[in-house]
Protein backbone atom coordinates (compact mmCIF):
# COMPACT_ATOMS: atom_id res chain seq x y z
CA UNK A 1 0.00 0.00 0.00
CA UNK A 2 1.19 3.45 -0.80
CA UNK A 3 0.94 6.69 1.19
CA UNK A 4 -2.61 7.19 -0.17
CA UNK A 5 -3.85 4.49 2.15
CA UNK A 6 -3.39 6.78 5.12
CA UNK A 7 -6.84 7.85 6.19
CA UNK A 8 -5.45 10.13 8.86
CA UNK A 9 -2.03 11.63 9.34
CA UNK A 10 -0.57 14.33 11.54
CA UNK A 11 2.72 16.14 11.09
CA UNK A 12 4.20 18.02 14.04
CA UNK A 13 0.93 18.57 15.85
CA UNK A 14 1.18 20.96 18.81
CA UNK A 15 -1.66 22.30 20.88
CA UNK A 16 -1.69 24.75 23.73
CA UNK A 17 -4.33 25.64 26.26
CA UNK A 18 -4.04 29.18 27.58
CA UNK A 19 -6.72 29.13 30.17
CA UNK A 20 -6.41 29.00 33.18
CA UNK A 21 -2.65 28.62 32.73
CA UNK A 22 -0.46 28.13 29.71
CA UNK A 23 -0.30 24.42 29.14
CA UNK A 24 0.89 22.31 26.23
CA UNK A 25 -1.67 19.57 25.66
CA UNK A 26 -0.04 18.01 22.59
CA UNK A 27 3.66 17.99 21.87
CA UNK A 28 4.88 17.35 18.38
CA UNK A 29 2.46 14.50 17.69
CA UNK A 30 3.10 12.53 14.51
CA UNK A 31 0.66 9.69 14.00
CA UNK A 32 -0.92 8.02 11.03
CA UNK A 33 -3.87 5.69 10.76
CA UNK A 34 -4.22 3.43 7.78
CA UNK A 35 -7.39 2.33 6.09
CA UNK A 36 -9.07 -0.53 7.91
CA UNK A 37 -7.01 -0.12 11.05
CA UNK A 38 -8.60 -0.32 14.49
CA UNK A 39 -6.42 1.86 16.69
CA UNK A 40 -6.73 2.79 20.35
CA UNK A 41 -5.27 5.77 22.18
CA UNK A 42 -4.43 5.21 25.81
CA UNK A 43 -2.85 7.25 28.52
CA UNK A 44 -3.40 8.51 32.01
CA UNK A 45 -6.10 11.12 32.50
CA UNK A 46 -4.74 14.48 31.45
CA UNK A 47 -2.30 12.89 29.06
CA UNK A 48 -4.08 14.60 26.14
CA UNK A 49 -5.71 11.56 24.59
CA UNK A 50 -9.19 13.09 24.32
CA UNK A 51 -7.72 16.37 23.13
CA UNK A 52 -5.91 14.48 20.39
CA UNK A 53 -9.09 12.69 19.34
CA UNK A 54 -11.14 15.88 19.16
CA UNK A 55 -8.40 17.77 17.38
CA UNK A 56 -8.15 15.00 14.78
CA UNK A 57 -11.91 15.00 14.33
CA UNK A 58 -12.20 18.80 13.69
CA UNK A 59 -14.25 19.46 16.82
CA UNK A 60 -11.29 21.04 18.57
CA UNK A 61 -9.37 23.67 16.66
CA UNK A 62 -6.54 26.00 17.41
CA UNK A 63 -3.40 23.96 16.94
CA UNK A 64 -0.21 24.19 14.97
CA UNK A 65 1.03 21.52 12.62
CA UNK A 66 -0.80 19.60 9.94
CA UNK A 67 -3.68 17.16 10.02
CA UNK A 68 -4.61 15.35 6.83
CA UNK A 69 -7.90 13.49 6.82
CA UNK A 70 -8.61 11.52 3.66
CA UNK A 71 -6.14 13.76 1.86
CA UNK A 72 -7.69 17.05 2.96
CA UNK A 73 -5.82 19.42 5.21
CA UNK A 74 -8.12 20.34 8.08
CA UNK A 75 -6.23 23.37 9.36
CA UNK A 76 -7.05 25.48 6.35
CA UNK A 77 -10.78 25.06 6.54
CA UNK A 78 -13.60 27.19 7.78
CA UNK A 79 -16.19 25.95 10.33
CA UNK A 80 -18.72 25.04 7.63
CA UNK A 81 -16.15 22.87 5.87
CA UNK A 82 -15.40 21.15 9.15
CA UNK A 83 -19.12 20.50 9.51
CA UNK A 84 -19.14 19.02 6.02
CA UNK A 85 -16.14 16.78 6.80
CA UNK A 86 -17.79 15.53 10.00
CA UNK A 87 -21.00 14.89 8.09
CA UNK A 88 -19.43 13.04 5.16
CA UNK A 89 -16.32 11.37 6.45
CA UNK A 90 -16.53 11.01 10.20
CA UNK A 91 -18.68 8.97 12.52
CA UNK A 92 -18.73 9.75 16.23
CA UNK A 93 -19.41 7.50 19.18
CA UNK A 94 -19.15 9.29 22.49
CA UNK A 95 -19.23 8.01 26.02
CA UNK A 96 -22.78 9.33 26.20
CA UNK A 97 -25.11 8.38 23.35
CA UNK A 98 -26.48 11.91 22.60
CA UNK A 99 -29.61 10.62 20.93
CA UNK A 100 -32.43 13.13 20.46
CA UNK A 101 -34.91 11.84 23.05
CA UNK A 102 -38.13 12.88 21.27
CA UNK A 103 -37.18 11.24 18.00
CA UNK A 104 -37.51 7.60 17.04
CA UNK A 105 -34.49 5.36 16.83
CA UNK A 106 -34.82 5.36 13.05
CA UNK A 107 -34.94 9.17 12.84
CA UNK A 108 -31.91 9.47 15.06
CA UNK A 109 -29.94 7.21 12.77
CA UNK A 110 -31.19 8.98 9.65
CA UNK A 111 -30.46 12.56 10.78
CA UNK A 112 -26.86 12.87 9.53
CA UNK A 113 -27.89 11.43 6.17
CA UNK A 114 -30.81 13.85 5.92
CA UNK A 115 -28.30 16.65 6.49
CA UNK A 116 -26.02 15.24 3.80
CA UNK A 117 -28.96 15.04 1.41
CA UNK A 118 -27.18 12.72 -0.98
CA UNK A 119 -30.04 10.24 -1.17
CA UNK A 120 -33.79 10.50 -1.22
CA UNK A 121 -35.60 10.27 2.06
CA UNK A 122 -36.88 6.83 1.17
CA UNK A 123 -33.38 5.56 0.48
CA UNK A 124 -32.06 7.16 3.65
CA UNK A 125 -34.63 5.41 5.80
CA UNK A 126 -33.94 2.10 4.13
CA UNK A 127 -30.20 2.58 4.78
CA UNK A 128 -30.99 3.44 8.40
CA UNK A 129 -32.95 0.20 8.66
CA UNK A 130 -29.99 -1.73 7.28
CA UNK A 131 -27.62 -0.20 9.81
CA UNK A 132 -30.01 -0.99 12.64
CA UNK A 133 -30.32 -4.56 11.42
CA UNK A 134 -26.55 -4.82 11.42
CA UNK A 135 -26.59 -3.87 15.10
CA UNK A 136 -29.51 -6.12 15.94
CA UNK A 137 -31.89 -3.26 16.64
CA UNK A 138 -34.18 -3.54 13.64
CA UNK A 139 -37.18 -4.31 15.84
CA UNK A 140 -36.64 -1.13 17.92
CA UNK A 141 -36.62 1.22 14.90
CA UNK A 142 -39.91 2.99 15.59
CA UNK A 143 -39.49 3.38 19.35
CA UNK A 144 -38.57 6.69 20.90
CA UNK A 145 -34.86 6.60 21.57
CA UNK A 146 -35.41 7.49 25.22
CA UNK A 147 -37.29 4.20 25.73
CA UNK A 148 -34.24 2.07 25.03
CA UNK A 149 -31.71 0.64 27.51
CA UNK A 150 -28.27 2.17 27.83
CA UNK A 151 -26.58 -0.61 25.82
CA UNK A 152 -29.18 -0.33 23.06
CA UNK A 153 -28.84 3.44 22.95
CA UNK A 154 -25.09 3.16 22.48
CA UNK A 155 -25.65 0.73 19.61
CA UNK A 156 -28.10 3.21 18.03
CA UNK A 157 -25.35 5.82 18.35
CA UNK A 158 -23.02 3.48 16.44
CA UNK A 159 -25.67 3.02 13.75
CA UNK A 160 -25.91 6.80 13.49
CA UNK A 161 -22.12 7.00 13.17
CA UNK A 162 -22.27 4.53 10.29
CA UNK A 163 -25.16 6.03 8.32
CA UNK A 164 -23.04 8.11 5.91
CA UNK A 165 -20.46 5.34 5.44
CA UNK A 166 -17.69 7.36 7.10
CA UNK A 167 -14.01 7.05 6.30
CA UNK A 168 -13.27 6.83 10.00
CA UNK A 169 -15.13 6.35 13.25
CA UNK A 170 -13.92 8.25 16.29
CA UNK A 171 -14.85 6.83 19.67
CA UNK A 172 -14.27 8.66 22.94
CA UNK A 173 -14.54 6.03 25.68
CA UNK A 174 -17.40 4.44 23.72
CA UNK A 175 -17.83 1.73 26.33
CA UNK A 176 -17.17 3.97 29.31
CA UNK A 177 -20.79 4.21 30.43
CA UNK A 178 -21.65 0.55 29.90
CA UNK A 179 -21.55 -2.52 32.11
CA UNK A 180 -19.09 -5.26 31.18
CA UNK A 181 -21.60 -7.26 29.14
CA UNK A 182 -22.76 -4.32 27.04
CA UNK A 183 -19.21 -3.08 26.86
CA UNK A 184 -18.19 -6.41 25.36
CA UNK A 185 -21.05 -6.24 22.86
CA UNK A 186 -20.09 -2.77 21.69
CA UNK A 187 -16.41 -3.68 21.41
CA UNK A 188 -17.46 -6.78 19.49
CA UNK A 189 -19.37 -4.57 17.06
CA UNK A 190 -16.29 -2.42 16.42
CA UNK A 191 -14.24 -5.55 15.82
CA UNK A 192 -16.85 -6.87 13.42
CA UNK A 193 -17.05 -3.55 11.55
CA UNK A 194 -13.31 -3.59 11.07
CA UNK A 195 -13.15 -7.22 10.00
CA UNK A 196 -16.24 -7.41 7.79
CA UNK A 197 -16.33 -3.91 6.34
CA UNK A 198 -12.70 -2.82 6.66
CA UNK A 199 -13.94 0.14 8.74
CA UNK A 200 -11.21 2.44 10.08
CA UNK A 201 -11.73 3.09 13.80
CA UNK A 202 -9.88 5.22 16.32
CA UNK A 203 -10.95 5.06 19.95
CA UNK A 204 -9.78 6.61 23.18
CA UNK A 205 -9.99 4.28 26.15
CA UNK A 206 -8.57 3.84 29.60
CA UNK A 207 -9.38 0.12 29.57
CA UNK A 208 -6.02 -1.51 28.83
CA UNK A 209 -7.74 -4.87 28.32
CA UNK A 210 -9.80 -3.50 25.43
CA UNK A 211 -6.88 -1.50 24.06
CA UNK A 212 -4.73 -4.62 23.86
CA UNK A 213 -7.35 -6.23 21.59
CA UNK A 214 -7.12 -3.46 18.97
CA UNK A 215 -4.68 -3.59 16.07
CA UNK A 216 -2.44 -0.96 17.52
CA UNK A 217 -2.21 1.19 20.62
CA UNK A 218 -0.93 4.75 20.73
CA UNK A 219 0.17 5.67 24.23
CA UNK A 220 0.26 9.31 25.22
CA UNK A 221 2.09 10.74 28.16
CA UNK A 222 1.93 14.45 28.97
CA UNK A 223 0.89 15.19 25.39
CA UNK A 224 3.67 13.18 23.79
CA UNK A 225 3.39 9.90 21.91
CA UNK A 226 5.49 7.40 23.79
CA UNK A 227 4.71 4.32 21.74
CA UNK A 228 3.75 4.88 18.12
Amino acid at each position, binding site marked *: MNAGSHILRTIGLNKFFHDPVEFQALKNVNVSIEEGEFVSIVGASGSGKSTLLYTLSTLDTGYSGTILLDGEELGKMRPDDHA*RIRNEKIGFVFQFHYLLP*EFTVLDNVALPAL*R*LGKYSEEEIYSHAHEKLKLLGLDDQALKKSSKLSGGQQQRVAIARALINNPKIIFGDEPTGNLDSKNSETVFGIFKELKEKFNQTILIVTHDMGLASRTDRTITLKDGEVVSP
Partner: protein
Amino acid sequence: MNSNKPLARIALTHLVAKKRQTIVATLGVMFGIAIFIFQAGLITGFQTTFIDKTINTTANIRIHNEADKNRKSIAGKLHDPRKDWVVVRNQKPREDDLKIRNGNEIVKIIERHPDVAGVSPFLASQVIFKMGIAQQAGFVSGVLIEKEDLLFGLSANMKEGNTTRLLTIPNGIILGAGLAEKLGAKMEDLLSIISPMGVTLEMKVVGINESGLTEVDKTRAFVNLRNAQKLLQVDGSYITDINIKLKNIDRAGELASEFEKRFGYKADDWKTANANIFGVFKLQNMVTSLVIASIMIVSGFGIFNILMMIIYEKMPDIAILKAVGFRNGDIKKIFLMESLIIGLFGGILGMGFGFIITHIVGSIPMNIKGFVSMKYLYFNQSPAFYVTAFLFALLVTGIAGYLPARKAAKIDPMDIIRSK
Protein backbone atom coordinates in the same frame (compact mmCIF):
# COMPACT_ATOMS: atom_id res chain seq x y z
CA MET B 1 -29.15 21.14 0.46
CA ASN B 2 -32.62 19.85 1.18
CA SER B 3 -32.15 19.50 4.90
CA ASN B 4 -34.67 22.17 5.84
CA LYS B 5 -37.20 19.44 6.46
CA PRO B 6 -35.31 17.76 9.30
CA LEU B 7 -34.61 21.23 10.72
CA ALA B 8 -38.31 22.03 10.70
CA ARG B 9 -39.06 18.69 12.34
CA ILE B 10 -36.56 19.40 15.08
CA ALA B 11 -38.05 22.87 15.56
CA LEU B 12 -41.58 21.47 15.85
CA THR B 13 -40.41 18.78 18.26
CA HIS B 14 -38.93 21.43 20.53
CA LEU B 15 -42.14 23.42 20.51
CA VAL B 16 -44.26 20.35 21.18
CA ALA B 17 -41.97 19.37 24.03
CA LYS B 18 -42.58 22.81 25.56
CA LYS B 19 -46.28 22.74 24.82
CA ARG B 20 -47.50 25.01 27.57
CA GLN B 21 -44.91 27.73 27.07
CA THR B 22 -45.43 27.58 23.30
CA ILE B 23 -49.18 28.05 23.71
CA VAL B 24 -48.65 30.97 26.08
CA ALA B 25 -46.18 32.62 23.69
CA THR B 26 -48.57 32.07 20.75
CA LEU B 27 -51.45 33.55 22.74
CA GLY B 28 -49.22 36.50 23.56
CA VAL B 29 -48.71 37.20 19.88
CA MET B 30 -52.37 36.53 19.18
CA PHE B 31 -53.57 39.09 21.71
CA GLY B 32 -50.98 41.56 20.54
CA ILE B 33 -52.25 41.31 16.98
CA ALA B 34 -55.90 41.31 17.99
CA ILE B 35 -55.41 44.43 20.08
CA PHE B 36 -53.51 46.02 17.20
CA ILE B 37 -56.47 45.44 14.89
CA PHE B 38 -59.00 46.44 17.56
CA GLN B 39 -57.21 49.63 18.57
CA ALA B 40 -56.28 50.78 15.11
CA GLY B 41 -59.79 50.03 13.83
CA LEU B 42 -61.45 51.78 16.75
CA ILE B 43 -59.27 54.87 16.72
CA THR B 44 -59.29 55.43 12.98
CA GLY B 45 -62.98 54.48 12.85
CA PHE B 46 -63.73 57.08 15.48
CA GLN B 47 -61.62 59.65 13.69
CA THR B 48 -63.31 58.95 10.38
CA THR B 49 -66.75 59.34 11.95
CA PHE B 50 -65.66 62.50 13.66
CA ILE B 51 -64.18 64.00 10.52
CA ASP B 52 -67.30 63.09 8.56
CA LYS B 53 -69.53 64.83 11.08
CA THR B 54 -67.19 67.77 11.44
CA ILE B 55 -67.01 68.29 7.70
CA ASN B 56 -70.79 68.21 7.70
CA THR B 57 -70.96 71.05 10.22
CA THR B 58 -67.89 73.05 9.24
CA ALA B 59 -67.71 74.97 6.04
CA ASN B 60 -65.00 73.89 3.65
CA ILE B 61 -64.01 77.55 3.58
CA ARG B 62 -65.27 80.25 5.90
CA ILE B 63 -64.72 83.90 5.03
CA HIS B 64 -64.98 86.29 7.93
CA ASN B 65 -63.77 89.66 9.17
CA GLU B 66 -61.23 89.12 11.88
CA ALA B 67 -61.11 91.68 14.70
CA ASP B 68 -57.65 93.06 15.21
CA LYS B 69 -57.12 92.28 18.84
CA ASN B 70 -53.44 93.14 18.95
CA ARG B 71 -53.99 96.67 17.82
CA LYS B 72 -51.05 99.00 18.48
CA SER B 73 -51.72 102.03 20.60
CA ILE B 74 -51.44 105.36 18.86
CA ALA B 75 -48.45 106.21 21.03
CA GLY B 76 -46.91 102.91 20.04
CA LYS B 77 -47.31 103.80 16.37
CA LEU B 78 -45.49 107.08 16.84
CA HIS B 79 -42.44 105.72 18.59
CA ASP B 80 -39.84 103.28 17.41
CA PRO B 81 -40.15 100.28 19.74
CA ARG B 82 -36.38 99.65 19.41
CA LYS B 83 -35.61 103.00 20.97
CA ASP B 84 -38.50 103.77 23.31
CA TRP B 85 -40.71 101.83 25.64
CA VAL B 86 -44.34 102.64 25.25
CA VAL B 87 -46.81 101.31 27.81
CA VAL B 88 -50.47 102.16 27.50
CA ARG B 89 -52.71 100.65 30.15
CA ASN B 90 -56.43 100.01 29.85
CA GLN B 91 -56.42 100.40 26.12
CA LYS B 92 -60.05 99.79 25.06
CA PRO B 93 -60.70 97.46 22.16
CA ARG B 94 -61.85 99.44 19.18
CA GLU B 95 -65.42 98.91 18.21
CA ASP B 96 -64.54 96.76 15.26
CA ASP B 97 -67.31 96.18 12.86
CA LEU B 98 -67.23 92.51 11.88
CA LYS B 99 -69.42 93.20 8.90
CA ILE B 100 -68.31 91.93 5.54
CA ARG B 101 -68.85 94.84 3.21
CA ASN B 102 -70.67 94.06 0.00
CA GLY B 103 -71.31 90.61 1.45
CA ASN B 104 -74.17 89.84 -0.90
CA GLU B 105 -72.08 90.78 -3.94
CA ILE B 106 -69.19 88.61 -2.73
CA VAL B 107 -71.64 85.73 -2.30
CA LYS B 108 -72.77 86.16 -5.89
CA ILE B 109 -69.22 86.30 -7.21
CA ILE B 110 -68.16 83.20 -5.32
CA GLU B 111 -71.26 81.30 -6.45
CA ARG B 112 -70.04 81.67 -10.03
CA HIS B 113 -66.63 80.17 -9.21
CA PRO B 114 -66.30 76.82 -11.04
CA ASP B 115 -64.89 74.96 -8.01
CA VAL B 116 -67.67 76.05 -5.68
CA ALA B 117 -70.69 73.89 -4.98
CA GLY B 118 -72.54 76.25 -2.68
CA VAL B 119 -72.29 79.50 -0.76
CA SER B 120 -74.21 80.52 2.32
CA PRO B 121 -74.15 83.96 3.98
CA PHE B 122 -74.27 83.78 7.72
CA LEU B 123 -74.77 85.97 10.74
CA ALA B 124 -74.51 84.58 14.26
CA SER B 125 -75.56 86.12 17.51
CA GLN B 126 -75.23 85.02 21.09
CA VAL B 127 -78.65 84.87 22.68
CA ILE B 128 -80.56 83.70 25.71
CA PHE B 129 -83.27 81.23 24.87
CA LYS B 130 -86.17 81.62 27.19
CA MET B 131 -89.23 79.43 27.44
CA GLY B 132 -91.35 79.98 30.49
CA ILE B 133 -88.85 79.89 33.32
CA ALA B 134 -86.37 77.75 31.41
CA GLN B 135 -83.37 79.75 30.24
CA GLN B 136 -80.45 78.67 28.19
CA ALA B 137 -77.51 80.53 26.71
CA GLY B 138 -76.54 79.70 23.16
CA PHE B 139 -76.37 81.24 19.77
CA VAL B 140 -78.55 81.57 16.73
CA SER B 141 -77.28 81.19 13.23
CA GLY B 142 -79.04 83.51 10.87
CA VAL B 143 -79.07 81.81 7.48
CA LEU B 144 -80.80 81.56 4.15
CA ILE B 145 -82.06 78.11 4.90
CA GLU B 146 -82.07 76.64 1.38
CA LYS B 147 -78.44 77.73 0.88
CA GLU B 148 -77.41 76.52 4.33
CA ASP B 149 -79.11 73.19 3.65
CA LEU B 150 -77.10 72.79 0.47
CA LEU B 151 -73.87 73.21 2.45
CA PHE B 152 -74.52 71.20 5.58
CA GLY B 153 -77.32 68.83 4.65
CA LEU B 154 -79.53 70.09 7.44
CA SER B 155 -82.68 68.45 6.11
CA ALA B 156 -81.01 65.03 6.40
CA ASN B 157 -80.40 65.59 10.11
CA MET B 158 -83.87 66.81 11.02
CA LYS B 159 -85.18 64.88 13.98
CA GLU B 160 -88.56 66.58 13.72
CA GLY B 161 -90.13 69.09 11.35
CA ASN B 162 -88.39 70.17 8.19
CA THR B 163 -86.22 73.00 6.98
CA THR B 164 -88.57 74.45 4.42
CA ARG B 165 -90.97 75.59 7.14
CA LEU B 166 -88.43 78.25 8.00
CA LEU B 167 -89.25 79.80 4.63
CA THR B 168 -92.97 79.81 5.18
CA ILE B 169 -93.11 80.83 8.82
CA PRO B 170 -91.31 84.18 9.24
CA ASN B 171 -90.61 83.73 12.96
CA GLY B 172 -89.69 80.06 12.78
CA ILE B 173 -86.72 78.60 14.61
CA ILE B 174 -84.98 75.24 14.27
CA LEU B 175 -83.47 74.11 17.58
CA GLY B 176 -80.55 71.75 18.16
CA ALA B 177 -81.72 68.49 19.69
CA GLY B 178 -79.84 69.00 22.96
CA LEU B 179 -81.02 72.57 23.24
CA ALA B 180 -84.66 71.57 22.71
CA GLU B 181 -84.28 68.93 25.39
CA LYS B 182 -82.81 71.39 27.88
CA LEU B 183 -85.57 73.92 27.27
CA GLY B 184 -88.22 71.27 27.17
CA ALA B 185 -89.30 72.70 23.82
CA LYS B 186 -91.45 70.71 21.44
CA MET B 187 -92.66 71.33 17.92
CA GLU B 188 -94.91 74.37 17.49
CA ASP B 189 -93.94 75.71 20.96
CA LEU B 190 -93.32 79.41 21.31
CA LEU B 191 -90.17 80.74 22.94
CA SER B 192 -88.35 84.01 23.12
CA ILE B 193 -84.75 84.82 22.26
CA ILE B 194 -82.94 87.78 23.71
CA SER B 195 -79.89 89.28 22.07
CA PRO B 196 -77.00 91.20 23.71
CA MET B 197 -78.58 94.36 22.25
CA GLY B 198 -81.61 93.69 24.35
CA VAL B 199 -83.82 92.83 21.41
CA THR B 200 -86.37 90.11 22.14
CA LEU B 201 -88.04 88.09 19.42
CA GLU B 202 -90.88 85.63 19.81
CA MET B 203 -90.14 82.47 17.84
CA LYS B 204 -91.99 79.29 16.96
CA VAL B 205 -90.27 75.91 16.92
CA VAL B 206 -90.57 74.52 13.40
CA GLY B 207 -87.90 71.86 13.54
CA ILE B 208 -85.40 69.99 15.71
CA ASN B 209 -82.02 69.22 14.26
CA GLU B 210 -79.40 66.67 15.35
CA SER B 211 -75.98 67.06 13.76
CA GLY B 212 -74.38 64.35 15.94
CA LEU B 213 -71.85 66.73 17.46
CA THR B 214 -73.14 66.90 21.00
CA GLU B 215 -71.71 70.30 21.92
CA VAL B 216 -73.15 71.95 18.84
CA ASP B 217 -76.59 70.44 19.27
CA LYS B 218 -76.76 71.73 22.81
CA THR B 219 -76.25 75.39 21.93
CA ARG B 220 -77.27 76.11 18.34
CA ALA B 221 -80.47 77.17 16.69
CA PHE B 222 -81.23 78.32 13.14
CA VAL B 223 -83.31 81.33 12.26
CA ASN B 224 -83.82 83.31 9.08
CA LEU B 225 -80.99 85.70 8.31
CA ARG B 226 -83.41 88.62 8.55
CA ASN B 227 -84.34 87.71 12.14
CA ALA B 228 -80.69 87.54 13.15
CA GLN B 229 -80.19 90.98 11.64
CA LYS B 230 -83.13 92.24 13.71
CA LEU B 231 -81.61 90.76 16.86
CA LEU B 232 -78.40 92.66 16.23
CA GLN B 233 -80.17 95.77 15.05
CA VAL B 234 -78.39 95.88 11.74
CA ASP B 235 -79.46 96.40 8.15
CA GLY B 236 -80.42 93.77 5.61
CA SER B 237 -77.01 93.60 3.97
CA TYR B 238 -75.19 92.87 7.21
CA ILE B 239 -73.44 89.47 7.34
CA THR B 240 -70.31 88.39 9.25
CA ASP B 241 -69.47 85.10 7.59
CA ILE B 242 -69.64 83.52 4.20
CA ASN B 243 -69.54 79.73 4.26
CA ILE B 244 -68.46 77.92 1.13
CA LYS B 245 -68.80 74.34 0.04
CA LEU B 246 -66.38 73.08 -2.59
CA LYS B 247 -66.70 70.40 -5.21
CA ASN B 248 -63.38 68.98 -4.05
CA ILE B 249 -62.57 69.57 -0.38
CA ASP B 250 -58.89 68.81 -0.90
CA ARG B 251 -58.57 72.15 -2.70
CA ALA B 252 -59.83 74.06 0.35
CA GLY B 253 -56.40 75.33 1.37
CA GLU B 254 -55.43 76.84 -1.97
CA LEU B 255 -58.88 78.34 -2.67
CA ALA B 256 -59.01 79.83 0.83
CA SER B 257 -55.86 81.81 0.19
CA GLU B 258 -57.15 82.78 -3.25
CA PHE B 259 -60.37 84.21 -1.75
CA GLU B 260 -58.43 85.84 1.05
CA LYS B 261 -56.30 87.73 -1.44
CA ARG B 262 -59.19 88.61 -3.70
CA PHE B 263 -61.70 89.92 -1.15
CA GLY B 264 -59.38 91.11 1.60
CA TYR B 265 -61.11 89.13 4.34
CA LYS B 266 -59.77 86.23 6.35
CA ALA B 267 -60.60 82.85 4.78
CA ASP B 268 -60.10 79.65 6.82
CA ASP B 269 -60.27 76.20 5.32
CA TRP B 270 -61.80 73.36 7.32
CA LYS B 271 -58.43 71.83 8.16
CA THR B 272 -57.16 75.07 9.69
CA ALA B 273 -60.45 75.59 11.48
CA ASN B 274 -60.20 72.15 13.02
CA ALA B 275 -56.42 72.16 13.55
CA ASN B 276 -56.79 71.42 17.26
CA ILE B 277 -58.81 68.30 16.48
CA PHE B 278 -56.19 67.02 14.08
CA GLY B 279 -53.62 67.70 16.78
CA VAL B 280 -55.61 65.53 19.18
CA PHE B 281 -55.81 62.82 16.52
CA LYS B 282 -52.08 62.91 16.09
CA LEU B 283 -51.59 62.45 19.83
CA GLN B 284 -54.19 59.70 19.85
CA ASN B 285 -52.45 57.87 17.05
CA MET B 286 -49.12 58.20 18.81
CA VAL B 287 -50.51 56.78 22.06
CA THR B 288 -52.14 53.94 20.15
CA SER B 289 -48.88 53.09 18.41
CA LEU B 290 -47.07 53.11 21.73
CA VAL B 291 -49.62 50.80 23.32
CA ILE B 292 -49.44 48.41 20.39
CA ALA B 293 -45.65 48.50 20.30
CA SER B 294 -45.38 47.74 24.01
CA ILE B 295 -47.77 44.81 23.73
CA MET B 296 -45.73 43.43 20.86
CA ILE B 297 -42.49 43.93 22.77
CA VAL B 298 -43.92 42.01 25.71
CA SER B 299 -44.90 39.13 23.45
CA GLY B 300 -41.43 39.36 21.91
CA PHE B 301 -39.92 38.86 25.34
CA GLY B 302 -42.18 35.86 25.83
CA ILE B 303 -40.78 34.26 22.71
CA PHE B 304 -37.22 35.18 23.62
CA ASN B 305 -37.74 33.57 26.99
CA ILE B 306 -39.12 30.28 25.75
CA LEU B 307 -36.37 29.95 23.14
CA MET B 308 -33.66 30.54 25.73
CA MET B 309 -35.25 27.85 27.88
CA ILE B 310 -35.29 25.41 24.99
CA ILE B 311 -31.69 26.16 24.14
CA TYR B 312 -30.46 25.56 27.68
CA GLU B 313 -32.41 22.35 27.88
CA LYS B 314 -31.35 21.13 24.44
CA MET B 315 -27.63 21.87 24.70
CA PRO B 316 -26.74 18.16 24.20
CA ASP B 317 -28.98 17.97 21.14
CA ILE B 318 -27.34 21.03 19.66
CA ALA B 319 -23.91 19.57 20.39
CA ILE B 320 -24.62 16.27 18.67
CA LEU B 321 -26.27 17.93 15.68
CA LYS B 322 -23.14 19.96 15.21
CA ALA B 323 -20.90 16.94 15.78
CA VAL B 324 -22.68 14.95 13.06
CA GLY B 325 -22.31 17.78 10.58
CA PHE B 326 -25.11 20.29 10.99
CA ARG B 327 -23.73 23.75 10.39
CA ASN B 328 -24.02 26.80 12.62
CA GLY B 329 -26.47 28.21 10.07
CA ASP B 330 -28.63 25.08 10.35
CA ILE B 331 -28.84 25.47 14.11
CA LYS B 332 -29.71 29.14 13.75
CA LYS B 333 -32.45 28.18 11.30
CA ILE B 334 -33.98 25.72 13.75
CA PHE B 335 -34.51 28.37 16.39
CA LEU B 336 -35.57 31.06 13.95
CA MET B 337 -38.15 28.61 12.62
CA GLU B 338 -39.41 28.03 16.13
CA SER B 339 -40.01 31.70 16.75
CA LEU B 340 -41.50 32.27 13.30
CA ILE B 341 -43.85 29.33 13.79
CA ILE B 342 -45.06 31.02 16.97
CA GLY B 343 -45.31 34.33 15.08
CA LEU B 344 -47.17 32.74 12.18
CA PHE B 345 -49.73 30.91 14.29
CA GLY B 346 -50.08 33.80 16.71
CA GLY B 347 -50.49 36.18 13.79
CA ILE B 348 -53.15 34.11 12.03
CA LEU B 349 -55.08 33.50 15.25
CA GLY B 350 -54.73 37.17 16.16
CA MET B 351 -56.16 38.30 12.82
CA GLY B 352 -59.12 35.96 13.30
CA PHE B 353 -59.61 37.03 16.89
CA GLY B 354 -59.28 40.71 15.96
CA PHE B 355 -61.87 40.26 13.21
CA ILE B 356 -64.28 38.57 15.61
CA ILE B 357 -63.97 41.04 18.49
CA THR B 358 -64.24 44.10 16.28
CA HIS B 359 -67.42 42.68 14.76
CA ILE B 360 -68.87 41.69 18.11
CA VAL B 361 -68.09 44.99 19.80
CA GLY B 362 -69.17 46.87 16.68
CA SER B 363 -72.61 45.25 16.83
CA ILE B 364 -73.34 46.10 20.47
CA PRO B 365 -75.53 49.22 20.65
CA MET B 366 -73.60 51.83 22.62
CA ASN B 367 -75.63 55.04 22.22
CA ILE B 368 -72.61 57.11 23.03
CA LYS B 369 -73.21 60.79 23.63
CA GLY B 370 -69.79 62.22 24.14
CA PHE B 371 -67.73 64.23 21.77
CA VAL B 372 -69.91 62.89 18.99
CA SER B 373 -73.06 60.87 19.38
CA MET B 374 -73.02 57.42 17.82
CA LYS B 375 -75.25 54.43 18.11
CA TYR B 376 -72.54 51.84 17.47
CA LEU B 377 -68.78 51.92 17.68
CA TYR B 378 -67.54 52.11 14.16
CA PHE B 379 -64.44 50.00 13.39
CA ASN B 380 -62.32 50.75 10.41
CA GLN B 381 -61.89 47.26 8.90
CA SER B 382 -59.10 48.21 6.58
CA PRO B 383 -57.21 45.15 5.26
CA ALA B 384 -54.08 47.24 5.64
CA PHE B 385 -54.36 46.89 9.42
CA TYR B 386 -54.52 43.12 9.15
CA VAL B 387 -51.55 42.99 6.82
CA THR B 388 -49.53 45.43 8.92
CA ALA B 389 -50.38 43.60 12.14
CA PHE B 390 -49.35 40.28 10.63
CA LEU B 391 -46.09 41.62 9.25
CA PHE B 392 -45.45 43.27 12.58
CA ALA B 393 -45.96 39.91 14.33
CA LEU B 394 -43.45 38.27 12.02
CA LEU B 395 -40.98 41.12 12.50
CA VAL B 396 -41.19 41.06 16.28
CA THR B 397 -40.97 37.27 16.50
CA GLY B 398 -38.14 37.30 13.99
CA ILE B 399 -36.15 39.73 16.12
CA ALA B 400 -37.08 37.93 19.35
CA GLY B 401 -35.97 34.66 17.78
CA TYR B 402 -32.82 35.92 16.17
CA LEU B 403 -30.87 36.61 19.35
CA PRO B 404 -31.39 33.17 20.92
CA ALA B 405 -30.85 31.55 17.52
CA ARG B 406 -27.51 33.26 17.17
CA LYS B 407 -26.58 32.16 20.65
CA ALA B 408 -27.50 28.56 19.83
CA ALA B 409 -25.44 28.70 16.64
CA LYS B 410 -22.42 29.82 18.63
CA ILE B 411 -22.51 26.90 21.06
CA ASP B 412 -19.27 24.96 20.90
CA PRO B 413 -20.10 21.25 20.98
CA MET B 414 -16.78 20.57 22.73
CA ASP B 415 -18.01 22.45 25.81
CA ILE B 416 -20.90 20.05 26.19
CA ILE B 417 -19.19 16.83 25.14
CA ARG B 418 -16.18 17.42 27.39
CA SER B 419 -18.34 18.07 30.42
CA LYS B 420 -20.43 14.89 30.10
